[in-house]
């Protein structure tokens, strides 16, 4: 049988994406409830995802919006 922590690791991405089946979900939850090692890693992953998102988002330069606005009415044949 597979090591339970390895199995829990395998379920992590789908757990956080909420795409596990009910059976898998219960399996992960049961393991997490008793395993500090895995629950720390799940929490880490969750905050990492948020941090990646915040770090990666760059606002659009305002000049670009003006340029896009000028494209209105472009002719299909042009």
């Amino acid at each position, binding site marked *: 049988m597979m090591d339970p922590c390895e199995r829990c*690791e*395998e379920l*992590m*991405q789908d757990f956080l994406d909420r*795409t596990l089946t009910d059976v898998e979900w219960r399996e992960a939850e049961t393991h997490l409830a008793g395993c500090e*090692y895995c629950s*720390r*890693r799940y*929490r*880490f*992953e969750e*905050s*990492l*995802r*948020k*941090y*990646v*998102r*915040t*770090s*990666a*988002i*760059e*606002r*659009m*330069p305002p000049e*670009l*919006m003006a*340029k*896009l*606005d000028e*494209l*209105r*009415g*472009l*002719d*299909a044949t*042009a």
Partner: protein
Amino acid sequence: MSEPETETEARRIATQARDRARFEEEALSLADQVYRVARRLVGSREEAEDLVQETYARAFRSWSSYTAGTNMRAWLLRILTNLNVDRGRKIQRTPQTQPLEESDYYLANKMASAAGEDVLESDDVVERLSQDSVVKALSEIPPQFRDVVVLVDIGDFTYADAAQILDIPIGTVMSRLHRGRRALKQHLAEETLA
């Protein structure tokens, strides 16, 4: 043309102009979200700006092929990702690199062994990674995998939307997403803890 026919024609033209203006309005309101995805799909700000402009030029020309009521953000991103593949990817047509397969706990394990298991408990542990290193690590994910990570994790698209945008099956979206995220964590571990 008889009088009523001219009137019908005039009405048709007016309706079309109104629909088109609405379309353009909605598309422009999504520009910031389109840019945020574009910016992480390409290497520089200039490239992202060009890509977004090309996308809007094409979208405005072919506005009549958009079905009202469907997901316009996904429709715009589909144009954008196709344009991106057409332009950039031709230049760097190196064989698709496969990300190395490190485990999902890889980065957490590395950080824990560098600073002790307890460090993973603190809320700010991820902030030990600089924002620049996150951006750099994202850019180092092989393109095929990066596209999916950017669409889902930064663009907030569902698996189904990402599948439609990239014209690949949902199963492929999931496997590329999982592998792309693992590659991201591996790059972060290498950069931060080297």
